[in-house]
Every structure is written in structure tokens, then in C-alpha cells.
């Protein structure tokens, strides 16, 4: 119960910060709509649904990356990771709170992006929406872990894409193929791994 309250307090803090700063979500929205618009005009008419779906996943992954680069900005610029790590709460609560906030931003961006995709291309089926929802969980969990790693590194802007994009390949494979079981398995594995690994990532920052 205390753990859940800690997670809720940390996630609420991130949502409040975004509400005040209005930096991450507007950037993500602008990016994903711009990317889908470019794809719409770049693709020749009569392009297959599978090809369009591939571009949707590319847009989602890069939009997520944009959000993830902003996820730890306050912790990085204001040294707040030190203050959070020193608190006696379970350190994985810091990861979970942040991952939930990232997830909320992703879902908010997709609430706009998916209808836009449906309008620009060949509609949207329930399987794709389910795949996106499952992918969001994996993206938020792995991305938040790598975001914390990047805070400690020197070449931060470089490190996050280098760590995150290879790990996003299975998500794209599962998403384009519509393999929901594969995405669920990815989530199960990487949520647990990220949750357990966060303690070690922030131990020497």
C-alpha cells in the first residue's frame, strides 16, 4: 500500500511538472502528426496496409524516443535523482512512477495519432490498437530504465537512442506482425527486468 502511494506520488509529480512546463506532450503530438503527414504524402497511392502499418510503428517508436529524452530532464538538470535516491522509499518506485508518467504521455499522443493514421491511410483495426497498447507498456518500461542510465552518462543525447532503438526492434516486429502474444511476453520480461535493474542503475549516479 505504501509502495503504491509512493508510485502514485511520483507519477503525479511528473504529470504536474508536464502540466506546468508543457514541453513533452506538445512536442510528441507535433512530431507524430508531422511524421504521419509526411508519410501520407511520401507514400504512393495504393500502398499496401502492411507498408502503412510499418510507418505507423516507426512514428510511434520515434515519438516515444522524443518523450523519453525529456523524461528525466528535471532529474538531470536539477540533480533531483540524488534527492529521490536518498529517500527511504523503494528505488523501484521511482522507476515505476516515471514509467507510468511516460506511459500516460505515450497514450495521450496516440489518442491523436491513431485516428490521424486511420484518416490518412487504410483505417485501423482492433488488433493494431491492442498491439499499440501492449507495445506502450514495453516502451515505457525499457525506455524509462535507459533514460535513467542516460542521465548518468556523458553523451546523454546519444546514449538513449543507442540503447533504446535496438531494444525497440522486437516491438516493431511484434507490432507490424500483429503478434499480441509476443508483445505481451516482451512486456512481461522487460517490466520485471527493468523493475529489478533500476536499483543498480541509480546506485552510482
Amino acid at each position, binding site marked *: 500500500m*505504501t509502495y503504491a502511494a509512493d508510485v502514485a*506520488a511520483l507519477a503525479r*509529480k511528473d504529470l*504536474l511538472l508536464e502540466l506546468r512546463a508543457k514541453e513533452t506532450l506538445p512536442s510528441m503530438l507535433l512530431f507524430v502528426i508531422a511524421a504521419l503527414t509526411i508519410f501520407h504524402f511520401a507514400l504512393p497511392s495504393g500502398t499496401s496496409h502492411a507498408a502503412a502499418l510499418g510507418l505507423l510503428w516507426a512514428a510511434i517508436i520515434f515519438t516515444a524516443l522524443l518523450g523519453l529524452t525529456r523524461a528525466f530532464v528535471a532529474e538531470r538538470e*536539477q540533480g533531483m535523482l*540524488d534527492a529521490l535516491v536518498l529517500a527511504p522509499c523503494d528505488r523501484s518506485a521511482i522507476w515505476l512512477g516515471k514509467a507510468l508518467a511516460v506511459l500516460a504521455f505515450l497514450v495521450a499522443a496516440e489518442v491523436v495519432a491513431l485516428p490521424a493514421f486511420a484518416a490518412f491511410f487504410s483505417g485501423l483495426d482492433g488488433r493494431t490498437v491492442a498491439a499499440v497498447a501492449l507495445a506502450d507498456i514495453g516502451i515505457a518500461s525499457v525506455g524509462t530504465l535507459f533514460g535513467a542510465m542516460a542521465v548518468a552518462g556523458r553523451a546523454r543525447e546519444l546514449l538513449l537512442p543507442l540503447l533504446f532503438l535496438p531494444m525497440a526492434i522486437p516491438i516493431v516486429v511484434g507490432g507490424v506482425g500483429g503478434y499480441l502474444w509476443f508483445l505481451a511476453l516482451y512486456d512481461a520480461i522487460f517490466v520485471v527486468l527493468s523493475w529489478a535493474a533500476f536499483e543498480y542503475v541509480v546506485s552510482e549516479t
Partner: protein
Amino acid sequence: MIAARSLAKRYGEHRVFAGIDIDLRPGGFLLVTGPNGSGKTTLLRVLAGLAAPTAGSLRLPERHTVGYLGHEPLVYRELTPLENLTLFGRLYRLPERGARIGMLLERFGLWEVRHERVSTFSRGMQQRLGLCRVLLHEPSLLLLDEPYNALDAEGCELLDGVFDEHRTWVVATHEPRRVEQRATERLAFA
């Protein structure tokens, strides 16, 4: 409270410090002095448990009994003082945190601006809020890195009053005159 033997810290080939011995008893005051870049901040980070020593042994009190103020006040600039302290009060599991937060904000002259964003504050006001945060959970060990930084005369006097409290202190500064008479232990970096 703190027992360190032959403590050393390196970053790759760069040796920050080595051979540090510390015996700090409850109620003691360790004054760490030295020029900029001499390793004071790194030592405080090691003592706070934020960085691991490369060599040596170190015994520290439990995490919830430690308060750490670094070069930055370690508060969220887009939150208000009340929101910052409520968040940390929650994470430190403070009972009746509202009363404690109110008392600290009053003491450090921030009550009137408790609903304003920290980003609108001067650096001195942010430092005052950093002191509120670090005292919030009534730590028995306080690690303060250049605590007088940016404080005006009134702020410095408030901090002097904090030092009168019976706690264990490790204070790093390159201007030791203000706290020199309180020191029970000294550590000078070259």
C-alpha cells in the same frame, strides 16, 4: 555515526582522494575544507551513499536518518515549495507532515510564497527551500555542501541557528570561518 578507513575514490585514472579516515560520533561536527575541485563534494556524495568508494571501508547510518544538501538545492523548480515538501514528506513517510512542513516554511521565511513556483525564486530562496527539504525528516546526520552559498545575511543567520541543533554534521566549505568554532573534527583537502 560515520566510521571510514582508508577511504578512496577514483574516476578511471583520476584519483579524487585516498587514505581518508573518519571517526564521527553522534553530535560531532566534521568540517571539510579545501579549494574548488579538491574532492569535498565527492567525499560528501560517498558519505551520503550516492557514490561508492573505490577502496576502503565505510560504515554509515541508515538512509532515512541522513539529510544531504548538495551544490543544488535539490527541489523541483516547476513545483511550489509546498508541493516539493509534500512529495518528500510522503517519500520519507512523515506522520503529520503538514504541520512539520508549515513550521519549516515559517522558520525559513517561505510561508508567504508557499504556493509560488520555485523557478520564480532567487537562488538564495531556493537554498532556503533546500534546507527545508533536508531538515524535513529530522535527520540525525546532515551532510551539507557549501550550505552558505547564495544565502543573504538573514539566511546565514537562520542556518547558524540550524547548526545549534543537536545533530551530527558534515559540512564542506571553502570558506570555513563561519563554522570553524563548531568543528569537532577537521579534514582538509589540498
